[in-house]
């Protein structure tokens, strides 16, 4: 399962970077959506994928019996999803305002402040 995920995540990263490099600011934001999800999947995968072994501990024990899924990356991914969601919400509003003000969906029209 992990190799398949690795290839999929790689493709996601590649597509995201390609979209970010485009001039359109809408594609830029779509690129960010993909990039954030690629990173989340990556964290999920690097910790190893374990089937059918929830990290539950029986009442009378301190440690789970046998090999269980690692709960920490899931918590980390959850936090990262929330952060990515907030940041993306901001980015969407930003490109909308930028489009209203600049009247163009094109990074090349937004070079006034560069030099």
């Amino acid at each position, binding site marked *: 399962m992990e190799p398949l995920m690795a290839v999929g995540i790689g493709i996601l990263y590649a597509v995201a970077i390609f979209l970010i490099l485009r001039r359109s600011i809408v594609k830029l934001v779509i690129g960010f959506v993909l990039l954030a999800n690629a990173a989340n999947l990556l964290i999920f995968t690097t910790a190893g994928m374990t089937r059918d072994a929830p990290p539950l501990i029986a009442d009378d024990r301190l440690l789970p019996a046998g090999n269980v899924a690692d709960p920490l990356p899931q918590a980390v991914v959850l936090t990262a999803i929330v952060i990515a969601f907030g940041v993306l919400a901001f980015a969407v509003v930003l490109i909308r305002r*930028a489009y209203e003000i600049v009247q163009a969906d094109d990074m090349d029209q937004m070079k006034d402040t560069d030099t």
Partner: protein
Amino acid sequence: MNPDVALPVLLPLLSGAVSLLFWRSRALQRFVAVAGMLGLFVVSVRLFLLTLENGYVTMQVGNWPAPFGITFIADMFSAVMVLLASMIGLAIGVYSLATTGRGHEAFGYYPLMHLLLAGCVGAFLTGDIFNLYVWFEVMLVASFALLILGSERAQMEGAIKYVTLNLLASVIFLTATGLTYGLVGTLNMADIALRLDASEHQGMVEVLAVMYMVAFGIKAAAFPLFFWLPASYHTPPVAVSALFAGLLTKVGVYALFRVLTLLFDQSMDYLQPILLWGAAFTMVTGVLGAAAQYEFRRILSFHIVSQIGYMLLGLALYTPLAIAGGVFAVMHNIVVKTNLFLISGVAHRLQGTYRLKRMGGLSRRHPWLAAAFFLSAFSLAGLPPLSGFFAKFMLVRAGIEAGAYVVTGIALLVGLMTLYSMVKIWNEVFWKKLPDDNNVPDNTAATESNGRLGLALMYLPVMVLALGTLLIGVFAEPLVRVMNMIATQLLNSSGYIEAVLGDNVASRTTTLLAEPKTPVGEGLAEGVAP
């Protein structure tokens, strides 16, 4: 349990929440802004004194033993950074009272300012790599919103680049953190440091080191990843510019120092040349960019980039003296750069423009402002006996001792070029006569709504920071001693690791060496509960 470490993080979060409660009352929000920053300053001084006494102050959040819970740790470096951040926060808080427009205040300027401070301080104090990411994001989101308050065209254009590159850096950081977790199975930085040393995949460790270097390099605006900074820092209101200039890039520099000295000290052989030449190019491009500009804040923005080069030079040389010099450069730069931006704001208030060609004559009419600029600008260029001189002296000496003659020569040359830009501003804004086409009379200040009181509020932080620059220069000796302590702590990470992990370091190290792939659960009380 030691709540002193958490207080500097909690306090700005609390003041942010309180000022959100007073959303409709400008007066109360302004009061909370100054009171909150003052409180933050007090607890930061306390933390600094505690750290000075003990070396390390740690706290395990929720009393989970490290490495399972989140650790907050202050060593000398973080304590000094927190102290500086709170100083800048206080200065900006006072300055904002006079410069922030009604519209900005109505849309949450003050709560965002508190949040930004909370993010910075949290990043300085956390001992957990994922927690560091979270604090970075807190800081970033607050800075995004501050950057676009007002929605002018320039702000939008700058913000798109700022947001894009910073988000990219965050994702690289997150990816590296995920891979680190996959490699060592822990997020606690002290624990990662132990396990990376014992890891059998040293090639992967180097890849991780480079990923962190790129991520924090973008955030610190190092060459070649600095384009977002001069494109955006001159667009927001001046108090926001000053806050960003003083703090944000330095959080990136702090993270670079922390991660490379603590986690990746064994990869430094590989990283050193990259960092060294990165530092050299950062200095040169920044200073050349500034030479081409004729707008007050744009010149200063490019100089932020060039000064980052000095800090990186300290890290790249990686000797005790160089690290001490690099940290001294961070400290000096936070004070001086913030002050220069604040001064540009006062000049704008007096003359109604940031363009050098249309300004002039300030030295005659406002000698105190001119004196403050003189001190800060020449300190930035590294003239003795001001604060910048000692930073540069330590770095240059460390460079010569390490035999990096070319880069050291570049550093000296860049100092000269900095002087050129500063003299340019001095000549145009303060020395020459006010050009005829500037029809903003000099008494604008009196016609503004808050008039002379407003100007006094702007002058106060400027004067205090200028005095600070002078004092850092005059009383450099005790400060250099603090910097040397920081360098010793950074280069001997065992003290940090011991402070976090406590007594079980020795046992952990032996288990790690015997069995590198111990599962995360190791160390918890084993067996059946009674």
